[in-house]
Every structure is written in structure tokens, then in C-alpha cells.
């Protein structure tokens, strides 16, 4: 009889609720599980990027040649510097976040406030940098010609340095006017026309003897193949189809359009995470100021958004590697 009673007691203890086998609150555990699923989404994106890259392994753009710009240092080629700065900003804001969590454990409201504010500022700097990176990428720099087969022909001088279209092509008068939906048929508007036509580029190439065409193909030294003078003219005359300036979802002056597509999707999706992270951080920041967690005697909310914020940093570490380094 007494035996039965003891068993029931144990059962109440095990199944009666209030048990935390993982020693983590419901909210924190669910944040972890959300992070797992979000990590799988991002790895889906990155693995798809890897798929496309392996598919066009001999033609893929070299990231060092694409992302060479740093704000205020116009015209200088500084690969990686700005992305490295962005990475550092994000890691730094992760540090201030974890310091906020730590201050929260000591119920130090003033410190949590300061560190949350610093985290928000770091996040804003990062999102701003990304916006700048996007606009530079979209605007493009040198311009290129796309062939009938969808390959990109870029221009270099005899030393192998990139030459922009504006440096050797003279724009003539254009008869083609951009079709707007307001002055044409409503369903046939088109995007901005390029500054030059392919004929003008051909003329420019013919009159400048020191300019050569560079194709997308990567040679055994890891550089893009530069054609000879005759080959350059032949390739451009036979296959040149559209002048491409900058990048969008259809064309990309840096190489395969897929590169631009993945750049926009992956960094865009990540930037959206950073943006929403900043918004959530701002909400928590005001809650801290209002003393919500002070009254609760627990700053666990800060810890939960902290997990999300670190996750955003974690994803960036991978995006940085696979987009800019590898």
C-alpha cells in the first residue's frame, strides 16, 4: 500500500509539469529551434549557390574583382577591405549584445541600456553598409558586352587592367528611345537603355589598339582568359549582343547573371534578418528603459533576442566566406 503511494508521488513529480529537463525556459528553447530551422533555410541558399558555382566552375566571377570599392576612396581597388570592416562591425555588435546579456544577469539596468544601444548602432551601420554595397553593385563600374550565348565580354588594356567602356567608347546619337508605358503600349515598357550600343563599342575597340577582350573562362592560373587582338575583334563582332552596365536579376556585367541573383537573394535575406533584428532590439531597448524586465526581475528577453542577433552574425560569417573569400 505504502509502495503505491510512493510511486504516485514520483509520477506527480515527473509528469506533473514544471519540469525542465533541458534546463532552459520554453521561450529560449523555442528560439533555439527557430534558429535551427532558419539555419537550414540559409544553408539551402548557400548550398544552391554552391550548386550553381560548381555547375559553372570555369566561368564564375572572381569575387575579389567584383567587390573592390570602399566608400570615400573612389577609384581605388581595395578588395575585401570593406567587407572585412562590415564583418568586424557585426562581430563587435555581437559582443555588445552578449555584454548586455551579461549585465542583465546582474540586473544592471544602466549597463543593459548602454550595451543594447551600442548593439542597435552596430546593426544600423551594418545595414547601411550593405545598402551601399548593393547600390555599388547595381550601378556597376566598367560595363561589359553580353554575347548571344549569354557570356560576358569585359575589356582590359595590354597590362591586364580593366578598362571601362566610358574610357574608349564614344556615344553617338541614338535613334532608339526608351519605351515607357505612358507613351507606348501600356504593356511594353522597358528598362533603361544602356549608354552605348554594341556598334559603338566595336568602333571604340577598333580605334583603340591597346584594348583587348577578356572572357569569363578561368585559365589554369586562376585568372580570366584575355583574347588576342584579332580574337577580341572577332568575338565582339560575331557574338556581341547587348551592352551591360551594372547588375540586376537578368544581366550582370561581372559575369554569370546567377552570381548577381544569388548575391541579391542571400545578402538580401541576411540584410532583412539584420533589419528585423535591429527592430526587435529597439523594442527590447525601450522595454529595458521602461523597466519592464526590472519589474520582472529577469532579463531573459534580452538573452532571447541576443540569441537571434548572434545567429545573424553567425550566418554572416558563412556568407562572408562563401561569397567573398572562397
Amino acid at each position, binding site marked *: 500500500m505504502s509502495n503505491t503511494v510512493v510511486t504516485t508521488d514520483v509520477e506527480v513529480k515527473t509528469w506533473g509539469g514544471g519540469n525542465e*529537463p*533541458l*534546463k*532552459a*525556459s520554453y521561450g529560449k528553447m523555442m528560439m*533555439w*529551434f527557430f*534558429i*535551427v530551422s532558419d*539555419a*537550414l533555410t540559409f*544553408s*539551402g541558399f548557400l*548550398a*544552391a549557390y*554552391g*550548386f*550553381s*558555382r*560548381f*555547375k*559553372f*566552375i*570555369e*566561368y564564375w566571377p572572381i569575387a*575579389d574583382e567584383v567587390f573592390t570599392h570602399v566608400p570615400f576612396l573612389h577609384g581605388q581597388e581595395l*578588395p*575585401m*577591405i570593406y567587407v*572585412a570592416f562590415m*564583418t*568586424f562591425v557585426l*562581430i*563587435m555588435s*555581437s*559582443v555588445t*549584445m*552578449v555584454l548586455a546579456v*551579461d549585465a542583465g*544577469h546582474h540586473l544592471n539596468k544602466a549597463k543593459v541600456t548602454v550595451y543594447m544601444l551600442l548593439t542597435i548602432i552596430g546593426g544600423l551601420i551594418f545595414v547601411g553598409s550593405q545598402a551601399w554595397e548593393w547600390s555599388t553593385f547595381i550601378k556597376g563600374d566598367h560595363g561589359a558586352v553580353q*554575347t*548571344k*550565348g549569354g*557570356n560576358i565580354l569585359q575589356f582590359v588594356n595590354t597590362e591586364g587592367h580593366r578598362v571601362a567602356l566610358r574610357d574608349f567608347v564614344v556615344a553617338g546619337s541614338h535613334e532608339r528611345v526608351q519605351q515607357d508605358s505612358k507613351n507606348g503600349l501600356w504593356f511594353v515598357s522597358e528598362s533603361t537603355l544602356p549608354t552605348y550600343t554594341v556598334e559603338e563599342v566595336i568602333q571604340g575597340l577598333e580605334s583603340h589598339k591597346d584594348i583587348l577582350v577578356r*572572357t569569363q*573562362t578561368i585559365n589554369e592560373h*586562376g585568372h580570366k582568359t584575355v583574347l588576342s587582338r584579332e580574337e577580341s575583334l572577332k568575338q565582339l563582332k560575331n557574338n556581341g549582343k547587348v551592352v551591360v552596365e551594372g547588375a540586376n536579376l537578368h544581366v550582370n556585367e561581372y559575369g554569370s547573371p546567377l552570381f548577381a541573383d544569388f548575391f541579391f537573394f542571400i545578402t538580401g535575406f541576411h540584410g532583412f534578418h539584420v533589419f528585423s533584428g535591429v527592430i526587435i532590439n529597439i523594442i527590447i531597448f525601450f522595454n529595458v528603459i521602461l523597466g519592464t524586465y526590472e519589474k520582472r526581475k529577469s532579463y*531573459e528577453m534580452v538573452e532571447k533576442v*541576443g*540569441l537571434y542577433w*548572434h*545567429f545573424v*552574425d*553567425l550566418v554572416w*560569417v*558563412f556568407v562572408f*566566406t562563401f561569397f*567573398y*573569400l*572562397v
Partner: protein
Amino acid sequence: MAHEHKLEIFRGLVKFKSNTQKIWGVLVFLTLVTTVEVILGIYKPESLMAKFIGMKILNWIFIILTLVKAYYITWDFMHMRDEVKALRRMVVWTAIFLIIYLIFILLQEGGYIEGVYAKGFIKRDF
């Protein structure tokens, strides 16, 4: 809730006095790793361009350093080091298993299609 932190990193090689100190220590380490990555990425030493299991040694270094960074972000910034074993395994093993599976399948397929383009009768240079 207990706020005890394990203050050792590098398998006990470095032990910090407080959690705040550990955070700064990990920041220094992460910055160091990123700097190494950036320097290697800018200079691309010729000796690391040799292929190893289908990829350049340099790229293997980048990937390994990334995983190292990911480990310290998860373990020290996200406090995975202080969670119980069951939670840690639930999160980490699940994600790692699924991601490795996905990467293997997609890269394998991508490599196959590359082979078809290169050796098959598909013209790309026009």
C-alpha cells in the same frame, strides 16, 4: 536560473576570471581569425593554390577557419557551452547532419552538370 558560466576556452588552455573577460577574449580571437582570412584572401599565396580533395587548399583553410569562428560564436556568445548536453546535441547535431547531407547532394549534382557541359556536346562559347 543559475548564471554560471564555464570560463575555459581552447579545452582549458585559457581560463578567464569573469564572463566579461571571456567575451573580450573571444572577440580578440575572432578578430584574429578574420584578419588572417582577409590577408590570405588579398594575397592568395601561390603555395596554397594546389588542389586537395577537389578544392584549393586555400579554400579548405577558409572553410575550416569559418567553422572555428562559428564554433566560438555559438559556444561563447550564444552560451551553448553552458547549456545541457541534450539541448546542445538537439540543436547542433540536427543542423549539422542535415546541412552536410544537403551540401553533398547539391555539390555532387553541380559537379555532374559541369561535366556534362564540359565533355558533352553543349556549346557555350558563343
